[in-house]
């Protein structure tokens, strides 16, 4: 099966090789491509069936998590990305990749005006900001797929996902409660933090490790082909990685769901 997947590497990306391994185990054919190669035209997004923005600290997150990489997406790849998106191909942003997609306005992407025009920038009404603990934190969390998620390829994931978070800016926040209601109504919530039995974390630390509103760990776009999440499913693709020793709840399930049926 040849299912080419582009794993985008910008300066400071660091979970690209793990993401590639997860894609490979799930049956894909991943290739790590540097953003400079993409800019130079050595590769095009359209050469690939799926795009992964992996974790790390793109450009050191020096101006905020994912901000500089988001600018790259807007300035250099706006058209390519719109075309890729319009063709319904799947995009996965993990951790820094998720932050990048949100800050570039690709997620949740209800707007159609993703672009460099200066009038459109103020419309973003959700963000990923500093953890309420005020610092970077690494720990394992449980995730549940939101049943109403527009990303219907998630539906076959019938178990929780157990995997680590490792971030300082994973706190999902919205400008006002109406934004949250809209997210729910539109089916744009993809993952939530839960306890080991699947009950809502209800904001309790450390089940919800960063203070995210409504325990939101990941979201998707209205078309359901783009998802992003803070935790790292690529770090639990083999039961031997499970700190509690169980066999199930693999993050690999997410990669399988995204790659299968394509």
């Amino acid at each position, binding site marked *: 099966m040849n299912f080419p997947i582009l794993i985008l590497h910008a300066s400071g990306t660091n979970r690209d090789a793990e993401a590639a391994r997860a894609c490979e185990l799930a049956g894909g054919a991943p290739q790590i491509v540097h953003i400079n190669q993409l800019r130079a035209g050595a590769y095009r997004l359209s050469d690939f069936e799926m795009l992964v923005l992996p974790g*790390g600290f793109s450009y050191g997150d020096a*101006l905020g998590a994912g901000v500089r990489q988001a600018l790259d997406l807007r300035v250099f790849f706006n058209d390519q990305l719109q075309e890729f998106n319009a063709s319904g191909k799947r995009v996965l942003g993990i951790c820094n990749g998720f932050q990048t997609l949100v800050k570039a306005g690709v997620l949740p992407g209800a707007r159609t005006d993703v672009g460099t025009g200066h009038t459109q920038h103020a419309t973003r009404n959700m963000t990923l900001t500093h953890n309420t603990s005020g610092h970077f934190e690494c720990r394992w969390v449980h995730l549940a797929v939101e049943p109403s998620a527009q990303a219907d390829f998630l539906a076959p994931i019938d178990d929780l996902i157990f995997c680590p978070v490792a971030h300082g800016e994973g706190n999902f926040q919205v400008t006002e409660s109406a934004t949250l209601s809209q997210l729910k109504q539109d089916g744009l919530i993809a993952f939530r933090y839960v306890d080991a039995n699947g009950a809502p974390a209800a904001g309790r630390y450390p089940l919800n490790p960063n203070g995210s509103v409504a325990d939101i760990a990941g979201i998707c776009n209205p078309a359901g082909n783009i998802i992003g999440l803070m935790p790292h499913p690529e*770090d639990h693709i083999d039961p031997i990685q499970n700190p509690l020793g169980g066999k199930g709840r693999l993050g690999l399930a997410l990669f399988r769901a995204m790659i299968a049926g394509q």
Partner: protein
Amino acid sequence: MYRTLRIEISPHEDGGDPRLAAASQRLGVDTLRNCRKSQIYFLTSHSGETFSTERIDRLCAFLLADPVTETALVIDLSRDEPAADGHVIEVALRPGVTDMAARELERGAAELGIRGIEAATATRYELLGDLSTHDLHRLAQGLFCNDTIEQYSLGPIAPQFGSHSDAQNRVEQIPLSGLDEEALLACSQERMLSLDAQEMKEIQSFYDEISRAPTDVELETLAQTWSEHCVHKTFKSWIAFHQQTPDGRAKSVQEIRELLRTYIQAATEKVNRPWVRSAFVDNAGIIEFDDEFDLAFKVETHNHPSALEPFGGANTGIGGVVRDIIGVSARPIACTDVLCFGPQDLPQAELPPGILHPARVQEGVVAGIGDYGNKLGLPTVNGAVVYDDGYLGNPLVFCGAVGLLPKGAHPTEPQPGDRVVVLGGRTGRDGIHGATFSSAELTQSTHMESGSAVQIGDPITEKGLIELVEAARDEKLYTAITDCGAGGLSSAVGEMGKALGVDVELQNVPLKYPGLTPWEIWLSEAQERMVLAVPPAHLPRLQELADLWDVEMRNLGHFSDDGWLRVRYGRRAVAELPMAFLHDGLPRPLRVAHYQEQQPTRSAARMPSDPGHMLLRMLSYPSVASKEQIVRTYDHEVRGGTLVRPFTGPQMDGPADAAVLKPLGAWRHDQAIALSVGINPLLGKRDPYAMAVSAIDEAFRNAVAVGADPDRIALLDNFCWGNPTLPDRLGTLVRACQGCFDGAIAYHAPFISGKDSLYNEFDGQPIPGTLLISALGIVPDMRRTCTSHLKRSGNRLYLLGETRYELGGSLFNHLAGVDGGEPPLMPDEPLARYRALHAAIRTGLVQSCHDLSEGGLAVALAEMCIGGRLGAAVDIASIAQDVRLVESSPFPVTTTDHRPLATSHWFSLFSESNGRLLLEVAPEDADTLEERFAGLPLTPLGVVMETAQLVVKHSEQRLVDLSVTELVSAWKGEIVNDASRT
């Protein structure tokens, strides 16, 4: 249309930092009510081009202000002034200090079409409360601003753009001829050369012979190359070692021809393990991993920089050790850190002038390590944190890194004609004199004088270096590689060209800003640089790869074949030295060492009355207590190969003995690696020899405990000591080295790399001599590892190893105020028990396994209960029988109430004898286990209980009876929920 802008980014809501109130109270400021923090960006146009409002709005929206959480306020400084009312402190980096945010803003602005600008940053604190100007200065100096790298202003700060001075090409001649010893020493001190009289005379006579004066470039090059930091003079000196009996009579005099050769390298040679690939000759030690890869391991210290600027010091400490790994052509895969700090609760009034509070040091160091390791994508998986009054003025920061390299992939022979290529960061006036600075003692005024020796790291540039060097290695583009560390280019280029000679042009070195003199360029320790020897034909391909990975590359010159170091500045020779003098001209120092043996027993003391109470005190003792608050801020999962983590058990908070890692790229087989440490300065104060053998045993048994093969464990030594020119300091160092030799031989474990950091003193007070042993072991089967938490009620508990009357230097003696006592020495035939244990782990017989270290049996049992949230019922009667008197040593302590029987309980519970571990075994496997350990010291102790209660008895006498909840709350220092009782 703007010229110079100030953009203030404020959060909509700022809950304030809860730690701030406590920290300001520590400084004696009780009236700080709240603090609002904003980020400030300054922009100026060099080209004279101005920025339109529209462009600045885009810049703010796309790069600076998050629309959900922040607001931007733009002020044109040529027209308006920023608000100055209220209590305001603004802090900015000093010019020349690495400022990643400013750099990324310039790059981001260019993407938005705003070019030719320069950016700078600052932080604004708006404080609420009844605060005097004096209070504000105290808060600024004590909390917000570190004078070493930053400056502050009460009120709006002026923008700090990069330093721009006129180009300097001044080269001084330093006349040495005819100077007497005093004048030579004065010259050494004035230029911060850290050269002694003998060394200065050697240089003087060399230049007398060639009838000229040295240039500043030459003199500085010699000082760096001959520094303790670079050449390890003490470990290569000849030492007259005088030993005295406890009552001060001369016992023996021994001539030691080089500590390194006599004790460390000799052990490695004698042990002669075939899997050692490279020991002591390169930037890191290398051992065999599998049939495809080798492993590299290195641990460095960054003590003095961390004392002055904790964040930057620790940050660049990680950066430096990771470059050591890149410098053996390996891909870094993990980090370790071991930290020694002063007491965190030290009252401000007791803080000596000229040093930072230990809490501020810890906060900065931990943040610095996390920042660099996390951003490089390296899991920080193993370490320790130790607290002692002795580290108050001179903390210790050990940074380790492990790397993976294909066999035979590390070239080490530059060829004449190869180009000298520097990759990575630009060179600035930063970190100058780092090597000589680390070879001098700290004093109250060091932070004023040596600020330039400290720098903040840039992990993203280093990440590019990792990727670039790996690609260049795989394409075989270079013939030699080294990192630019202490001594900067002078050291890196001088060392690489040692056998050939080298000719470099300093004007080719890319600079952060103009104005550096030639010697500053040559010595700068600017971070994130590697030097490669590259055949000319490979330059174009290397340049392509450098462009791909966004790494700057420059060609400085070439390797020659005449054995001379030639450094030019605009073609003018500014240094011409024969490599032979540079590398072999250093006179071999002769040193004197004194060691007075300790009295075997000292005072008797009042024994505490309740072992349970003592156990709780131990669990909450800072060096033993949970380090979760620190470790969770490090990414220990990245690369997806952490199989035994820093924490274990159902709540994922019990302490692990060591880390087990599966390197990414090597999943096709079941081998993995183990990383562990051994360190015990408390014991070192009692007996440095015992500290050394105990640290080796601790690192070794920790690695075996998680599944490492005891016949595949390599060791690293890191000595942190005081001034070695003082005979008492050197005497304890010699004893520690002797312990290292004996330990390595007993465990058949080779040293593969090591480092010494000497002159760790503050105002004449040395730190406790501290030896860190780090172990790198091979785990043959990643599916047969072991963790420390109790697994299942009904399982049996065994103690492996003999318990001796060894409380000397123990945590028990420290807390009980007991002086003296026998220190723990080498167990009998340690390797036999570890081999048996390993075989048992490999066959799946051992359910859990935990080593006994500080606090002995009691703490180890408690930690197993904490991790598993299960109880244990243990009877120590069989140990008490087994407690072995050390030959010819009288019983060292007596109780005030003369209960000799009871004292043996204290030893059973708290003795820190080496070679001991606790094992948990399923009842059906108990017989098999006992058979496997026939002839070895294995003692049945008790059982694991469902009731979360730790009960330790001696026959019918109940010594400890504590709930696991009590243990957890003592160890974690927090109120915990009572889930463990259910």
